């Protein structure tokens, strides 16, 4: 699975990239390599694609795996190998601080969300970004906790697209890097922990005639609707105007 994200860099060497159209760089964290956007355009040209506007190039790079059956890794390998290509920039090594890790996590989540933005209502996306900003805030993060993994976030997004709930969930995180989607009513609670590869752990409780009932399980994402059916999931997912997916 590829992992690719970008970040704005106000200064790199003597170049102030924020002043021209190539104000972003595409990064590959595993290789500590990055490709400045203009060079990405040339690279895409070599690969048979026309060089377009900045956003189009960015979209193209970020969507390469889906659009062309390539992983972004392949693009970087092609860029760094072969003819001794000098178009690949090696960025200065960044110190691995909690702040940097949370920043990278947040950036990768927002990029992944942008890739499926056409399937999400604007209100949902804006609220989700606010939730992520809050969840991954350095001041409130426990140092010992692992920041949520991109694979967990991808499962979360697919869960939302699969369930298409009216009610947007609250967000939490486990200590070992999994996002938790939470739905709560006055008498019932549902938490779905998003594991990599479309695996889910769920737990619920509700008051029924004065006593507390609870249940838990693990399932594939595509099974969640059926698994929750005996517990009246409409109480959690419906009757709110928070999210309306097209």
């Amino acid at each position, binding site marked *: 699975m590829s992992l690719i994200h970008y970040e704005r860099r106000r200064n790199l060497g003597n170049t102030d990239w924020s002043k021209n159209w190539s104000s972003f760089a595409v990064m590959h964290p595993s290789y500590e390599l990055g490709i400045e956007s203009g060079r990405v355009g040339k690279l895409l040209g070599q690969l048979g694609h026309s060089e377009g506007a900045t956003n189009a190039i960015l979209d193209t790079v970020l969507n390469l795996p889906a659009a062309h059956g390539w992983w972004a890794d392949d693009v970087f390998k092609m860029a760094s190998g072969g003819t001794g290509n000098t178009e690949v920039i090696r960025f200065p090594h960044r110190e691995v601080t909690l702040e940097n890790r949370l920043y990278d996590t947040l950036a990768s989540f927002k990029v992944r969300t942008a890739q499926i933005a056409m399937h999400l209502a604007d209100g949902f996306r804006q609220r989700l970004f606010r939730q992520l900003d809050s969840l991954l805030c350095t001041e409130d993060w426990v140092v010992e906790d692992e920041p949520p993994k991109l694979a967990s976030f991808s499962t979360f997004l697919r869960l939302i697209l699969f369930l298409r709930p009216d009610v947007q969930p609250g967000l939490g995180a486990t*200590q070992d890097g999994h996002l938790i989607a939470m739905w709560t009513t006055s008498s019932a609670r549902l938490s779905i922990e998003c594991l990599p590869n479309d695996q889910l752990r769920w737990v619920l409780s509700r008051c029924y005639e004065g006593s507390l009932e609870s249940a838990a399980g693990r399932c594939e994402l595509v099974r969640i609707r059926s698994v929750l059916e005996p517990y009246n999931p409409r109480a959690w997912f419906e009757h709110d105007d928070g999210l309306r997916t097209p």
Partner: protein
Amino acid sequence: MTTAYVPPDDSLIRNVPWARLRKDADDNVLGIDSAAFRLRPLEPYLSATWLEFFAGASKTDQMHEAVRHIRNSDFKPTANSGFAIGKVREIEAACVSRSYKIRVVHEETADNRAHVAVRRWPEDDAVLFEELAAGAWGDLVMNKDCPA
């Protein structure tokens, strides 16, 4: 040395990070998520603080004193974290209903004289942790609501 068990009618207070608080989509805090009661890898027991260890005219006074004590320890609760409060008897009963016989032991540490080690705690039992979060250990006080 004898083991000092915390009396069953006394209460435990445990910090809950922002990421394990139960929230709605607008980040309004609604309670505690069950993940707050999971052990970390290799963590031998669940840590908490004994509420009645502290003097106070009321339960609220004791709670505020306990929070001040925790803030002054090596562990620094973050501004938007909370504290889960539960009575020992009810926590033990919830555990027994899932066949766990826990031990709630007062084990003073260098930085927390009221530290409690909840021993024989299950590594992971989603149903138990949910029942605790929704009931026996589900009272929540936010850190920012406690006076300095």
